[in-house]
C-alpha cells in the first residue's frame, strides 16, 4: 500500500508539494508555540527543582546562628534548613565592568538554593573563590577561572556560575549576586534562613508557627516559593503568560488550517476516488490508502516544520529563560515536540481520511458524476425533461419551445408568457441585472463561486479568521509591550503622571484634553503595631482606587468602605493576614489605626508590604497629610503635552514610582519571539488563502475554462478569483477581529489576570491593519493562483465531465 501511495503522490507532484508546504507552515507555528510555551510554562518549576529553591525564604536582622537555629528547627513541616548572610550594595568589578549594587551572599553549610551550571560550587572551608550568578556572567562575559573583585574580599577566582530562580537575572534585576563561603567571610551571623518543607502545600502552617516565634527578630520578611514565582512573572511584565496563551491560540489556528486543507485535498481527488470504487476497491481500503498517502506527506512535513519552528524561536526563547534566571528545557523539549508532531500528523491523516471514507461510501457513479457545470436538468430523465414543469413557473405551452421559424426580428408571442415573462414584449427588454439570478459582475460571480460550497467556504473562512484573530492579538500584544516599555515595573499602575497640585485645580486638570482621570493619592510608611518587620506602606485614594492602581486580586475582594484594607501578598505573609482578619498599623506621629482585611493583592512595590485603604482613618489621625495628584491619560496621548498644561495650572512634576527592573532589553527579546511566531502565522494565512482559491478554482474548473473559452483574459479571470478571495478574506477578517475582541483578548487577559489587569482589545488602527493586510494577502494569493490557472489548457477544464 505504501508503494501505491508513493506512486500516487509522485503523480500529483505539484499538489503534493503544496500540501506538504501547508503542513510545514502549520507545523512551523506549532513548533514555535510549543517551544515557547513549554519552555516558559515549565521554566520556573524546572529551575526551582534543580536549584532546590527553598519553600520559604526568611530575612531578618542578623542573629547568632545558634539562636536562630533553635527557633527554626522547632518549626513543623520542616525538611531542611540552611542559612546565609546577605550583604547588599557592595562594589563588584571585573575588567571594565563594575556595579555598586552587588549582593555578596555568604553561604553557610547545607543546601545552597542555587544550581551550578558551569564550573563547580565553592567548597565550605575554602577561601579565595566565588560563585557568580549567570546573569552577571552573561552580561559581563565572565568565565570560570576569571577574576572578580569583590568589596571587602579582594580579588576572588570564579569557580562556578550559578542560576537561582528566586529573582530575575541581572541586569533585569538591578542587584548582581555572588556567593562566597563562610570561611571567606568570618565572624558573620546569618540574616537569611532558607527553609525546605516536607509538604510545601502546608507552607502557611509553617509560616504561622514561624511568626509566633520571631518576636524581637526585627526586619522580618518572608517570601514563599509561590511569592517568588509571582515576583518573577511580574518582573517579566506579565508577558510570560500572555506568550503561553498566545501560543495556545496559534496552535488552534494551525490545527484549523490543517484540518481544512486536508479536507480540501480530498475534494480535489473525488474523481480518482470514484474510479477506484468503480474498479472494486472497498471504501475501507480507499480510506486506508488515503490515510497512508496523507501520512507520507504529513510526517516529513510535520517533523521538518516543527523542527524549523523550534529552531526559529530557540534563541529568543533561551534568552527569555536566561533573563528569568530559569533553566531551559533542554532535551525534555523533545517530548512535547514529538507529541506535537504526532498530533499534527494524526490531525492531517484524520482530516483527510474521514471525508475520503465518507465520499468513498457513495456509489461510484455518483462520485464520478461530480462535475460542476450544468449538463441536464437535475433529477429528471431526458425523456421527461420537457414534460415536467415546476408549478411556480406558471402556465406554459406544453413543452414546446416556440419555433425558431417565428424568430427573426420578431419577439416572442404570448405563448411563452408567464409570470416571469414580459407578455408580448416589443422594444427593448429591461436589463435583468437586478434579478435574483441576474448577472451581476464577474467579481460577484467569483463571490458566488466561493460561497457555493458552504462547508468548504466556512472552513476556509474559519481558518483564516482564527489566523487573523491571532495576528490581531499579536498586534495588541505589541502595543502592550510598548506601553510596558515606557512604564516599566508598574504592573497594576494605571496612571502615567504624578504631580503636586493644589486641590482647587483638580477640576481644571480633569478638564484638560487627553486626561482620562485625576485622583488624589495619599501615601505613608507605617509600622505594624507588633513590630514584626519592616515598615508597611499605606496608600489611600478617596473612592475607588482601582481607577489608578489595580494590582490583581489574589484572594478576597476589593475594599468597600473606609474600614477595610487590601494588603499585598508580602505583607499578608509576614503578618498572617487573610480576608477577614485585622491589620493594626502605627502611623508615625499619629496613633494606631485598624482595618479589616478585605482582600489580598499581588503587588510588587515595597516587596509586597503595601496596602490600599480609603484615607478617612488616616486623615483622622494625621489631618496634616497632603496627597500627590495622579493623572491617568487617554490612550495615545502625549504625556509631554499634558505635563505642560499641568505645569501651567501650577503643578510640579514628581517621579512615578521607582522602576523595579530594567525592561528594555527584555522586551526586545520578547518582541523577537512574537515576531517569529507572528511571521509563521502570517505564512499560514497566505497559505490558507491560496488553498481556498486553488480549491475553488479546481472545483469550478469547468466554469473557469468556459469563461476563458468565452474570451476572458487573465485579468478577467483574476477578477473572478479576486471575488473568490474577497469572499473568503473579508468575512474572515471581520470574524477574526471579532474573535480577538471577544474571545482571544479576554482569554489571554484572564490567563494573565493573576499578574495584571490589562485589557487586550485591539485598537481601530490595528483592526484596519489586519483587514488591510488580509486584503493585500488576498491580492497576492489571487495573482499566484490566477497565473497557475491560466497556464492550464482550457480544454482540460472543459473535459472535466
Amino acid at each position, binding site marked *: 500500500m505504501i508503494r501505491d501511495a508513493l506512486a500516487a503522490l509522485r503523480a500529483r507532484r505539484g499538489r503534493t508539494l503544496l500540501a506538504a508546504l501547508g503542513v510545514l507552515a502549520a507545523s512551523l507555528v506549532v513548533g514555535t508555540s510549543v517551544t515557547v510555551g513549554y519552555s516558559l510554562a515549565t521554566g520556573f518549576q524546572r529551575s526551582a527543582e534543580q536549584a532546590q529553591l527553598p519553600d520559604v525564604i526568611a530575612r531578618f536582622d542578623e542573629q547568632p546562628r545558634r539562636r536562630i537555629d533553635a527557633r527554626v528547627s522547632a518549626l513543623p513541616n520542616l525538611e531542611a534548613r540552611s542559612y546565609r548572610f546577605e550583604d547588599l550594595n557592595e562594589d563588584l568589578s571585573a575588567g571594565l565592568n563594575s556595579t555598586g549594587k552587588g549582593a555578596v551572599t555568604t553561604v553557610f553549610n547545607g543546601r545552597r538554593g542555587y544550581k551550578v551550571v558551569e564550573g563547580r560550587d565553592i567548597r565550605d572551608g575554602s577561601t579565595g573563590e566565588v560563585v557568580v550568578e549567570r546573569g552577571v556572567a552573561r552580561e559581563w562575559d565572565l568565565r570560570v577561572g576569571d577574576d572578580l573583585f569583590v568589596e571587602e574580599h579582594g580579588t576572588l577566582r570564579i569557580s562556578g556560575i550559578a542560576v537561582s530562580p528566586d529573582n530575575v537575572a541581572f541586569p533585569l534585576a538591578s542587584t548582581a549576586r555572588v556567593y562566597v563561603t563562610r570561611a571567606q567571610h568570618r565572624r558573620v551571623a546569618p540574616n537569611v534562613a532558607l527553609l525546605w518543607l516536607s509538604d510545601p502545600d*502546608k507552607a*502557611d502552617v509553617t509560616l504561622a508557627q514561624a511568626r509566633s516565634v520571631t518576636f524581637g527578630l526585627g526586619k522580618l520578611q518572608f517570601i514563599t516559593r509561590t511569592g517568588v514565582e509571582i515576583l518573577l512573572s511580574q518582573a517579566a511584565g506579565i508577558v510570560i503568560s500572555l506568550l503561553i496563551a498566545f501560543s495556545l491560540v496559534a496552535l488552534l489556528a494551525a490545527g484549523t488550517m490543517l484540518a481544512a486543507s486536508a479536507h480540501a485535498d480530498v475534494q480535489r481527488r473525488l474523481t480518482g476516488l470514484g474510479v477506484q470504487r468503480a474498479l472494486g476497491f472497498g471504501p475501507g481500503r480507499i480510506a486506508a490508502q488515503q490515510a497512508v498517502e496523507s501520512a507520507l506527506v504529513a510526517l516529513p512535513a510535520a517533523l521538518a516544520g516543527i523542527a524549523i519552528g523550534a529552531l526559529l524561536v530557540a534563541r529568543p526563547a533561551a534568552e527569555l529563560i536566561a533573563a528569568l534566571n530559569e533553566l531551559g528545557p533542554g532535551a525534555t523539549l523533545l517530548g512535547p515536540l514529538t507529541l506535537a508532531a504526532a498530533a499534527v500528523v494524526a490531525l492531517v491523516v484524520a482530516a483527510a481520511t474521514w471525508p475520503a471514507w465518507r465520499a468513498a461510501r457513495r456509489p461510484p457513479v455518483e462520485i464520478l458524476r461530480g462535475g460542476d457545470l450544468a449538463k441536464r436538468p437535475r433529477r429528471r430523465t431526458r425523456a421527461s425533461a420537457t414534460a415536467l414543469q415546476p408549478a411556480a413557473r406558471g402556465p406554459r405551452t406544453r413543452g414546446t419551445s416556440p419555433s425558431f421559424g417565428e424568430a427573426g426580428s420578431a419577439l416572442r408571442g404570448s405563448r411563452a408568457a408567464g409570470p416571469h415573462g414580459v407578455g408580448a414584449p416589443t422594444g427593448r427588454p429591461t436589463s435583468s441585472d437586478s434579478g435574483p439570478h441576474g448577472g451581476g459582475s464577474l467579481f460577484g460571480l467569483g463571490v458566488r463561486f466561493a460561497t457555493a460550497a458552504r462547508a468548504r467556504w466556512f472552513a476556509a473562512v474559519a481558518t483564516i479568521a482564527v489566523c487573523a484573530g491571532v495576528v490581531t492579538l499579536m498586534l495588541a500584544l505589541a502595543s502592550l509591550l510598548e506601553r510596558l516599555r515606557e512604564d516599566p515595573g508598574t504592573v497594576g499602575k494605571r496612571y502615567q503622571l504624578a504631580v503636586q497640585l493644589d486641590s482647587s485645580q483638580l477640576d481644571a486638570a480633569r478638564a484638560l484634553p487627553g486626561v482620562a482621570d485625576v485622583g488624589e493619592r495619599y501615601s505613608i510608611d507605617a509600622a505594624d503595631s507588633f513590630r514584626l518587620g519592616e515598615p508597611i506602606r499605606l496608600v489611600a485614594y478617596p473612592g475607588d482606587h482601582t481607577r489608578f492602581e489595580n494590582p490583581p486580586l489574589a484572594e478576597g475582594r476589593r475594599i468597600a468602605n473606609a474600614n477595610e484594607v487590601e494588603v499585598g501578598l508580602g505583607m499578608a505573609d509576614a503578618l498572617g493576614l487573610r480576608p477577614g*482578619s485585622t491589620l493594626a498599623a502605627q502611623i508615625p506621629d499619629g496613633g494606631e489605626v485598624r482595618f479589616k482585611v478585605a482582600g489580598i493583592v499581588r503587588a510588587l512595590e515595597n516587596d509586597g508590604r503595601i496596602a490600599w485603604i480609603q484615607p478617612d482613618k488616616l486623615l483622622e489621625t494625621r489631618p496634616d497629610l497632603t496627597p500627590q495628584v495622579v493623572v491617568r491619560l487617554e490612550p495615545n496621548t502625549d504625556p509631554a503635552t499634558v505635563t505642560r498644561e499641568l505645569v501651567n495650572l501650577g503643578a510640579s512634576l514628581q517621579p512615578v514610582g521607582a522602576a523595579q527592573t530594567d525592561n528594555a532589553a527584555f522586551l526586545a527579546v520578547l518582541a523577537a519571539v512574537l515576531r517569529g511566531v507572528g511571521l509563521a502565522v502570517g505564512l499560514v494565512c497566505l497559505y490558507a488563502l491560496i488553498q481556498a482559491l486553488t480549491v475553488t478554482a479546481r472545483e469550478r474548473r469547468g466554469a473557469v475554462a468556459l469563461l476563458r473559452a468565452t474570451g476572458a483574459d487573465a485579468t478577467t479571470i483574476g477578477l473572478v478569483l479576486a471575488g473568490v478571495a474577497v469572499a473568503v478574506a473579508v468575512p474572515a477578517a471581520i470574524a477574526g477581529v471579532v474573535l480577538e475582541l471577544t474571545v482571544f483578548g479576554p482569554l489571554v487577559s484572564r490567563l494573565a489576570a493573576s499578574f495584571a489587569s490589562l485589557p487586550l482589545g485591539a485598537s481601530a488602527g490595528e483592526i484596519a491593519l489586519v483587514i488591510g493586510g488580509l486584503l493585500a494577502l488576498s491580492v497576492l494569493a489571487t495573482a499566484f493562483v490566477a497565473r497557475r490557472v491560466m497556464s492550464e489548457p482550457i480544454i482540460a477544464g472543459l473535459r472535466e465531465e
Partner: protein
Amino acid sequence: MTAPRAARRAFAATVLAALAFAACGDDSPPAAGGDSTLRSTLVDPDRDGFLDAGPAEPLTDRGTPSRLGETLVTFGQLTDTHVRDEESPARVPFLDRIGTPFTSTFRPQEAFSAQTLDAAIRALNAQRPDAVFLTGDITDNAQRNELELALATLEGGRVNPDSGGPGYRGVQQPDSADPFYYRPDFDAPAHPGALAQAQRAFTAEGLKAPLYPLVGNHDVLAQGEVQPTEQINAYATGDELITALDPELLDQLPRAEIDAQRATAALLGNQFFLPSVDVPADDTRRLVGSGEWERAFRRERFDYTVDLTDRVRAITVDTVNRDGTSRARINPDQLQRLDEQLDTDRHAIVFSHNPLTPEALQILDRHPNVVAAISGNSHRNRVTPRGRYWLVSTSSLADFPQQSRMFRLRETADGAALETWMVDHDGRGLAGISRELAFLDAQGGRPQRFAGERQDRNVRLFVNVS
C-alpha cells in the same frame, strides 16, 4: 443439638479471649489511632506536621527479665491536665512571645482544655483501670471556676466551659491584629468557629474508676508561680484583659535574667501600662483559697495512702510549695510519713506532682518493696531506673503528646514487673483540634520532645527483690 454447639461456642470464645489477653503485650494490627498505643500510635512519618495513625508500639522490657505471673492491679495516671479559663484577665499570654521561660503562658489550643480532658477520660475508661491517679496541675491558674470545671468534667454530666459573658472574648479573637497569637479563624490550619464551639456546654462522660487526686503548683499559685494576692484577684474578677506586650518593654527587661516568678508578679501587679481590651467581669474567676482543693475532694490533705489491693499500696506526696514557685517542696514531716507508709510488705508505688526530691528518693532507696515513683509536672514521658526501682514521668494534656498512662502491676518469679503504656485520647471534635495544634506548636511538646523515646513510653519494668 444446641448444647454441644453452645459448648463449642463458649470454648471458642474462651480461646479467643485468651489469645486476646496474651496478645495484649504483642503487636496487633493498628487501629485508627487515638487509643492505647499498644494497639496503634500517632506518628508523622512524612514530617509534614500532621499526625497520622501509626503502628502499635509493643512493650519493651527494661531491667532484668523474670518469669511473669499474675496481674496484681491496674491503674491509670492522668497528669497536668491544666483545665483552663482562657478568657481570664489574670493571665499573661503576652509573655509567651518572649520565649523561655514563658513558653507555657500561651498555647494555641488553650481554649480546648476541658474537651481534651473529657477525651482523655473516655480513653482511660476504655482501658478499665482499677483506679486512676490524677497527679496535679489539674487546673491552670488556680481559679475557682477552673476547679469547678475540672471537677464537673471528671464527674461527668453537663459541663459549661464558658466564663465571663457568653461566647469567647480573648486574645485569639478573629479581630485580633496580633500575629503572635494563633487565631483559629484565620491562621493556618484554620478552624473557623472552633472558639465559639469551645464555649458551648457539652456532656462529659466522667471518670468511671475511683479517682485519687493530687494538686500541683498551677492549682494553687497564679500561673503556677505566684501566691494569690488581692491585687491579682482584683484583676481576675475585673474587666480588663491585657492583650499585648509593648516591644519596647522587652528592651527594658534583660533577657538572661528573667525570673519567671518576679516577672509574672510584676506584670500581674500591672506596674506597666499595657494594651488591653474590655471583657465581661466574672466573680467565679477568683483564685482559690487555702484548703479549697482539699474540701473539693473531701480530703484533709494530699498526702495519703491507698491500699489498692492487699498486695499493692499507693502513697501520695504533696510536693507543692504554697509559698510560690514551681519547685518541689517536701517537708520533713512529710518525709517521715512517707518512710512510715513505705514500711509494709505490699508492693509500694509513690505518686507526686513534682518528681521526688533527693531526700525523698533516699527514703525510697531504703525500702525494697518500692516498685516505682510516678510523677508529672515536666509534661514529659520519661522512665529512668534508680537502683532496684523506677522513676516514671508522664506527659500532660496541655502539650503534645497529650497522653495519659496505664499501668499493670504483675507478679514475677523474682519480684514484680510494672507494665506501663501510653494512651492517646480519641481526638474527636475539639480534642482533635487541640492535639493537632499542640503538635504544630513550635514552642510545644514536639520540638521539646516531650513524647520521649521508646523506652520512656511502653515498657515492662522489672523490679527484682532477690
